[in-house]
C-alpha cells in the first residue's frame, strides 16, 4: 500500500504531469510536493540571492510558492481531497530528492524539465534519481 508519495516539482509542465499521475494513481496517499530552489544556474543568481537573504526560510518559501500554488490548483482540478504537503529544499535537486526519498513509499517524477542549460549544469534529474533513490521511482512522461 502506497501511503506516502514524494513528487518533486520544478515548475515545468512535465513535473505537473507527474503530480497529475500521482493524484490519479495514488488517490488515497498523502502527497508531498518538493520544490528545490537555488539550483545551479548560468549566473548563480538564485543561489546567491538566497544565501544573502535576511531570512533564508522566508526567501526560499517565496521562491517555491508559485509551484505550490499551481500544485494546489492541480489537486483541485483532480477533484482530489488529497492532503497536499509541501516542502522546500536548497541547492542541487538530485541530492535534495535522494535525501528525502527514504521517508516515502515512492517518488513520482517528471522525465525531464527545464532548458538545455539546466541540463548542462544539473543533468537529467529524473535519471540520476532513478539511479540513486533508496525508494522505488515512477518516471512520468
Amino acid at each position, binding site marked *: 500500500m502506497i501511503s506516502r508519495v514524494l513528487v518533486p516539482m520544478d515548475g515545468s509542465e512535465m513535473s505537473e504531469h507527474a503530480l497529475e499521475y500521482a493524484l490519479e494513481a495514488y488517490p488515497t496517499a498523502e502527497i508531498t510536493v518538493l520544490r528545490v530552489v*537555488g539550483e*545551479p*544556474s*548560468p*549566473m*548563480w*543568481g*538564485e*543561489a*546567491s*540571492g*538566497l*544565501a*544573502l*537573504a*535576511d*531570512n*533564508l*526560510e522566508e526567501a*526560499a518559501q517565496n521562491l517555491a510558492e508559485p509551484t505550490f500554488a499551481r500544485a494546489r490548483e492541480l489537486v483541485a482540478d483532480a477533484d482530489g481531497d488529497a492532503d497536499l504537503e509541501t*516542502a*522546500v*529544499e*536548497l*541547492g*542541487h535537486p538530485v*541530492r*535534495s530528492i535522494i535525501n528525502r526519498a527514504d521517508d516515502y513509499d515512492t517518488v513520482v517524477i517528471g522525465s525531464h524539465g527545464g*532548458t*538545455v*542549460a539546466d541540463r*548542462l*549544469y*544539473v543533468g537529467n534529474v529524473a535519471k540520476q534519481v532513478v539511479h540513486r533513490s533508496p525508494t522505488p521511482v515512477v518516471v512520468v512522461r
Partner: protein
Amino acid sequence: MVETILLVGVVASIFVGFNIGGSSTGIAWGPAVGAGLLRKTTAAALMTFFVFLGGWTVGRNVMDTLSEGIITIDISLGAGVAVLFFIGLGILVANVFGVPVPTSMTTVGAIAGLGLATGTLNFETIGWIVSWWIVTPIIGFWIGATIGRYIYPELNRRFEIKASEGALLTFDRSGSIPKPTLGPNTTNQELVGTIVVFIIGCYMAFSAGASNVPNAVAPLVSSGALEANPAIIVATVAIGLGGFTIARRTMESVGGELSDIPLLAALIVMITASTITTLLSWAGIPISLVMSSVMTIVGLGWGRATRPVTAQEAIRGESDKELAPGALTAEPDAPVTPIGEEEPEEVLDAGDLFNPRAVMKYISMWVIGPSMSTLLAYGFFVAVPFVG
C-alpha cells in the same frame, strides 16, 4: 578578391559584435533596468557610448595582444576571417544553449589553434594569458567570499537598498513638464542606491568595451586589412546594434538572474568584476567579464552561506538559522526538543546552495569552451593550410 574577403570578414565581425552586445548589455544593465531606473533603449544607448570609450582607450592593449601577441606572425586576412567564424560559432552555441561561453577565451582559443597549426604560437604569451585565466576566477571568488563573509552583513545594515514594490520613479504629470517623483514605497536611500547602480553600469559597460571590442575585430586588424580606429568603430556599432535589439531579451534572462541577488550585492559584484576586467585589459590580457562576475557572485553567496557564527553574535542573539536547535545536536537524527522558539519543521542549510561539485562542473565548462575552439581551429587550419 581581397575586398570580398574583407567584406565577409567585416560581416563576421558584425555578427560577433552584435552577439557580444546582446550578452554584455544584459550583464551591465540588467540590474538598473530591472530596478526600473532606466528604459532598455536608454541602457542600450549608454552601453554603446561606454563600450566605445572602453574599446578606444584600454581596449587597444587587448587588441595588440590578440592581433600581434599570441602568434608570432600576422594573422592573414583569410585566416582572420576563419578565426572570426570560430568565435561566432562559439557565441552561437552559447546563445542557442543559454550557456555563458566567455568570448575572450574563445577568441584566444581560436587564434591559438591557428598558431598551433602553423607552428607560430607564442607559448610565453599564451602561458601568461592562461595563468591569468586561472588566477582571475580565484581572485573574484576570494574578493566575493571575503566581502560576503565579513563585510556584507555590516554593509547591508548600513546601506539597506532594496527594490521596493512598484516603480522606482513615477512622473508627476500634473504640470506642463512631467516631474519625476519617488514612486510608491521608494525611499531616498533606494533612489541613491539605484543611481549608484546606474553609474556602476556605465563602468561595467566601459570594461565590457575594453575587453570585448577587440574580440570582434582583432583578427582583421592583425593583417592590416582594417586599421585599428575604424575597426573599433565597426565593433562599437555592432555591439550597439546588439544592445538595442537582442539585449532586450538578455537583460531579462541574464539581468533577471542578477536581479535575484540583492541590489547591494549586485553593486559589489559589478564593481569587482569591472575592476578586474579593466585592470587586466589594461595589462593587455583578454579576459571575460562574465567569468569574473559569476565568480564574485558565487564567492559572495558562498562566503555568506558558510560564515561562522561569532560568539558575540550568538550572545546578542543576532544569528539566524545557524543556531537553530537542530544544528547543534551531535546526532542529526535524534529528536530534539526545541527550547524557547518553535523550531521550523526543517532547517535549511545555505551551505547546500554551493555544492563544490556543482561549482566545479560549472567551471569545467570554461575549460571545455576555449579548448574546443582551439581544437576546431587547429583542425581547420591543418586541413586548410593555405588560409594560414
